[in-house]
């Protein structure tokens, strides 16, 4: 929290007198102010010579704090918001949609976990093409040069009647190659600004954000010199969830697996990341028989452990 003297330029009520008064109560920053007993502060201000001005200063600080926190919502407002804004997007594959309770939900962070070559990128590409066919925009952050426009064209071409429609559909999927976690932050931040100031046009509204894969961005910085890698991981999760909720986007990320203690593979990125996504799905594929298996690790509304098996889950 800012030191009090930095506020003096914008808010003339918080002048040097006020700051001296606060300093006499050991209040040097806004944080100290919030921790202090406000009634006692008011009482002490009343005993001072320019008590009115001091009380106005205290009120000013309280106003600044009030303006900064997000609005409080009650349950009814939340349900209305969910009905109006939080749609569900089909992924294009019935098995996955059934497991997800309809598909990718706006406002939620869905994670796909799986070993290499289990189909995570394919699910991402398929979801992008399905969402684009339903006239919504997709932003695809690609860290491994795995975004394949041919595959997208294949998925789109499978069930669309006119070839000329393809350009409109493909124009709705925008791919950003990202090779650095700071680059991802910059991009997400710019996206947030764009969304805040955007005039809503149904054809160009970004509704799905895919990060493939977030683990390759975060693994190089985890457990390094100190906890900042961990902090960056949690901040990125927080930023993605904030984007999802405030701007009505469905977020899909992919993660890889590492060897666990008993030899069974477990999702990468550690224990703290477990609580970040709302929905976690585990994919696996048996190479020889080409049978894919998806199961739920975590879901707010479906039972975990439910799974779907299919040969050729997506052609």
């Amino acid at each position, binding site marked *: 929290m800012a030191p009090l003297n930095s506020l003096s330029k914008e808010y003339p009520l918080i002048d040097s007198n006020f700051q001296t008064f606060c300093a006499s109560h050991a209040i040097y920053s806004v944080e100290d102010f919030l921790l202090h007993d406000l009634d006692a502060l008011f009482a002490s201000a009343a005993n001072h010579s320019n008590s009115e001005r001091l009380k106005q200063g205290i009120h000013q600080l309280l106003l600044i704090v009030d303006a900064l926190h997000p609005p409080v919502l009650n349950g009814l407002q939340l349900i209305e918001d969910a009905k109006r804004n939080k749609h569900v997007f089909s992924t294009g594959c019935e098995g996955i949609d059934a497991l997800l309770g309809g598909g990718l939900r706006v406002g939620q962070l869905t994670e796909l976990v799986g070993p290499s070559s289990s189909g995570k990128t394919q699910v991402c590409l398929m979801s992008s093409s399905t969402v684009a066919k339903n006239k919504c925009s997709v932003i695809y952050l690609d860290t491994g040069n795995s975004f394949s426009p041919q595959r997208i064209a294949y998925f789109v071409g499978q069930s669309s009647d006119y070839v000329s429609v393809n350009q409109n559909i493909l124009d709705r999927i925008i791919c950003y190659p990202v090779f650095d976690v700071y680059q991802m932050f910059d991009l997400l931040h710019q996206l947030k600004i764009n969304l805040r100031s955007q005039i809503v046009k149904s054809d160009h509204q970004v509704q799905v954000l895919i990060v493939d894969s977030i683990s*390759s961005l975060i693994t190089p910085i985890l457990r390094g010199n100190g906890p900042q890698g961990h902090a960056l991981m949690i901040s990125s999760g927080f930023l993605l969830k904030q984007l999802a909720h405030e701007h009505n986007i469905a977020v899909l990320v992919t993660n890889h697996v590492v060897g666990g203690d008993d030899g069974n593979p477990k999702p990468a990125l550690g224990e703290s990341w477990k609580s970040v996504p709302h929905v976690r799905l585990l994919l696996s594929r048996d190479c020889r028989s080409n049978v894919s298996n998806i199961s739920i690790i975590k879901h707010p509304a479906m039972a975990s452990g439910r799974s779907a098996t299919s040969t050729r889950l997506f052609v």
Partner: protein
Amino acid sequence: MEIGMLPISASKRGKLLAAGYTTLHSILRTSTTHLVRDIEVSESEALEILNFATRSNDLDKSSGSNTNVIDGGQTAWDMLNEERFSSLITTSCLDLDNILGGGINCKEVTEIGGVPGIGKTQIGIQLAVNVQIPLDYGGLGGKAIYIDTEGSFMVERVLQIAEACIEDMSEYSHHFHKDNQAFGVKMHPNSILENIFYFRVCSYTEQIALVNYLDKFVTEHKDVKIIIIDSVTFHFRQDFDDMALRTRLLGEMSLKLMKLAKNLSLAVVMLNQVTTKHIEGSFQLTLALGDSWSHSCTNRIILYWNGDERHAYIDKSPSLKSASAPYSVTSRGIRNSTSSSKRIKMV
């Protein structure tokens, strides 16, 4: 945007937080002198922090254009059209080229792994020669960088393969341009050798330093179209006590290689060794360097023995079908398998 997302060192971040600067706005409100006094850094460091903060804040303000495309992105339609002109490097084996969709793709990182003796280095050398095939003959006319970690690069063998390649090219021109005598091949094996830049690395730090340096090198030598690393595993397998450090270093190296491939439009080929893994009660052969590394490539090809024949199998690819094809290693390089059954086996 919070302080945690600024690219500054951990100690400076700690000092900022301890002095009470927890948000971007609080930094922007002060001046360099205040920063120098509060967190005890030099003038230039304080100026650097303020610059980072201002730049992040400018991102906030620059919401002028109402388009959806933030800088750096491309729509799928544009990428699809670009891909039609994309460059492929042939492997000189028709079956292998067919399952690869024409050859090794530029802008992608391909990992090729297999048991010792299967022909990984041979494929690497063949690609280093094939990238130099001139545009007239359907090649890229580019140069190659060969990073050798094991010392298995034999110049005599490269000369042999280069000569065979030139003979093949002159045979091709003889077939298709019978009337035009002046269409002879103007290449000499020595010029092929000249266009392969060879680096020998002897430790993992050298390998990482070289990958960091490649960006500058390729910008100076713009014709480089392929980077072959043979093998990427060697220095990371022995004497590495700290596995967590290894995972971090490998993750960073793979991101840098991906960035090189994408930004400079070249192909990166990494050759890998095999190890055994205990899966479901039995031991299976998998590629070395662990689970995290298996995600660090765009495509993966596994080479294996099938009876007496060498086969290549596409293990991971975003757009290619899983298939395997036979190939053989001859005195002229990598060629089609000479056995009678030349079918591509669809898995």
